């Protein structure tokens, strides 16, 4: 799976680096000075690299924990995100990462302790108020967990700070480490879904909808709090029938009363990322529709957006109460 590993010279002897490299004994390892030398050069093609991404092991020096963009959140007043990884092992055509980064390589920051320090610092600033940390913005929170062990490392911190909540957002079924752990009331494992027809067409490498539901059922059975993320909602012929069936499949197997939250958001991309992605995938039907700019974002025309979100909200009301439903309102 990983054929090439770049390692920053500064952390080459870090025990975590050694342990991770043991998993890929056949990989070519290359020492670099700073991960940006490999990750940031202009002359790179995300689409070609995505065929065989490398792993870059690096140290993050600053900006560990950042405020979430406006409109993101699930009801909290203090919302932050952090990224122990950049890029994702999946290849979802709608994903903003392919327009944000020039490289498809996965960057893993191995100085987990510095993330912890930054998280604790933010917690101390809110004087016991509820504070949210979102971990799945620039990567999938769990997909590489068997290799990184990041979540296993960071959860004890949240066990010590009950006012601090963490959302692990994922499309993976890598829940073994969570199943070995006592559920935390302040940890929400949020699974992203699109209908299986969309997933098959646009979510390359992502476990099937059925497998993800199965992972959710196991976690819920053990007592983990779960979230559902329908973001992006993708417009297409028969979207109503497809989303209706997706919701039905999910709520037939999940206990909706024990769900923490449900979020909805129409497909949208920051305009510069949209431009980059169009250059990479001019042959992609997802982008070959009437998308229009609005507040620096590109999305469906407002009537389509509103119709889709209203439909999904109405359908979801058959299963969950409105107080746990949130819409991402960045447009």
């Amino acid at each position, binding site marked *: 799976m990983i*054929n*090439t590993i*770049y390692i920053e010279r500064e952390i080459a002897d870090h025990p975590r680096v050694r342990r991770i490299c043991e998993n890929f004994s056949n990989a*070519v390892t*290359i*020492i*670099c*000075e700073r991960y940006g*030398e*490999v990750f940031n*050069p202009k*002359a*790179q*093609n995300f*689409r*070609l*690299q995505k*065929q*065989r991404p*490398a792993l870059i092991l690096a140290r993050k020096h600053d900006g560990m924990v950042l405020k979430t963009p406006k409109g993101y959140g699930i009801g909290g007043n203090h919302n932050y995100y952090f990224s122990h990884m950049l890029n994702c092992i999946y290849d979802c*055509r709608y994903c903003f990462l392919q327009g944000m980064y020039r*490289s498809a390589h996965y960057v893993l920051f191995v100085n987990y302790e510095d993330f912890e320090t930054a998280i604790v610092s933010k917690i101390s600033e809110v004087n016991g108020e509820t504070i949210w940390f979102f971990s799945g913005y620039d990567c999938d929170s769990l997909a590489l967990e068997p290799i990184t062990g990041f979540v296993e490392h960071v959860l004890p911190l949240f066990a010590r700070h009950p006012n601090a909540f963490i959302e692990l957002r994922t499309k993976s079924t890598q829940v073994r480490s969570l199943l070995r752990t006592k559920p935390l009331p302040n940890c929400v494992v949020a699974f992203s879904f699109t209908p299986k*027809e*969309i997933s*098959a*067409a*646009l979510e*390359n490498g992502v476990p099937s909808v059925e497998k993800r539901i199965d992972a959710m059922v196991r976690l819920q059975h053990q007592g983990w709090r779960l979230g559902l993320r329908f973001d992006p909602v*993708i*417009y*297409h*012929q028969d979207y109503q029938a497809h989303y209706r069936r997706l919701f039905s499949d999910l709520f037939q197997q999940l206990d909706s009363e024990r769900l923490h939250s449900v979020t909805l958001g129409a497909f949208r991309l920051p305009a510069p990322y949209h431009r980059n992605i169009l250059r*990479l*995938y*001019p*042959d*992609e*039907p*997802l*982008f*070959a*529709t*009437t998308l229009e700019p609005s507040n620096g974002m590109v999305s469906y025309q407002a009537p389509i957006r509103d119709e889709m979100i209203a439909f999904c909200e109405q359908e979801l009301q058959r299963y969950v109460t409105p107080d746990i439903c949130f819409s991402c309102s960045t447009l």
Partner: protein
Amino acid sequence: MLHFVVALPAEAKPLIEHYGLVRHTGGAFPVYENENITLIVSGIGKVAAAAATGYLQAQTGNHSCTAWLNIGIVGHNRRAIGDGVLVHKITDQITGRNWYPPLTFGLPCVSDDLITVDEPETEYRENKLYDMEAAGFYATACRFTTAELVHCYKIVSDNLATPSEEVSTKTVQALIEQRLDTIDVLTQTLQAFAARLAEFQSDPGELARFLEHWRFTVSEQHQLRRLLLHWRARSPKTVWSAKLAALPSANDALRYLRQELDILPIEFSKS
């Protein structure tokens, strides 16, 4: 399309013969070519390599979907003579700048670090390849295409036991000849990548037909290209019809395309 950049005539000769390349007359550098491959002999040193790379780009047109391969002999302290190595890190010894050619395909050989030096290296202090061109070649070629299409393949000609003074023209030719199989694999792999990139970036097939049929302003040509790309992404069928061909103006044709796209269902097929 693939461009070879080599420093020495002795490095070029086996490639010229193997790929049936023909000398292009005149010019600042010796250039050889066939239908799919061009080769330039740069001379020794990173400045010469950079100049030759730029020259070849200018001579062959501004195509961003061309692969570039620098082939040549190198020194190493302990690698065996004849070892063929793909370069995964290039360091310019003078400036300290590094480049990392992305390894986005299955490697047909081992890979290693390389240091580009300004003067011939005889001590091989670091356990790395030493050459005199790669940094100049790579930095320049990456201005013309994406890094995934730019690589350096080197063959060890000298080491601590066999110093570079003992390497003859005949030896250089023989070393390259022995690695032609690997060079073939690299050439085919990079050409396939280049073809894929060209396919991503190609104009919609029907663009020329539209441009012949109506007179479009530059702005309308951009709109036309975008609409035809949308059509290609969403329908395997041609948009061309007798009804469309009968429309009097470019503006009418664009309006027709928009209307046809609006009624085309948005569907996704399994990837």
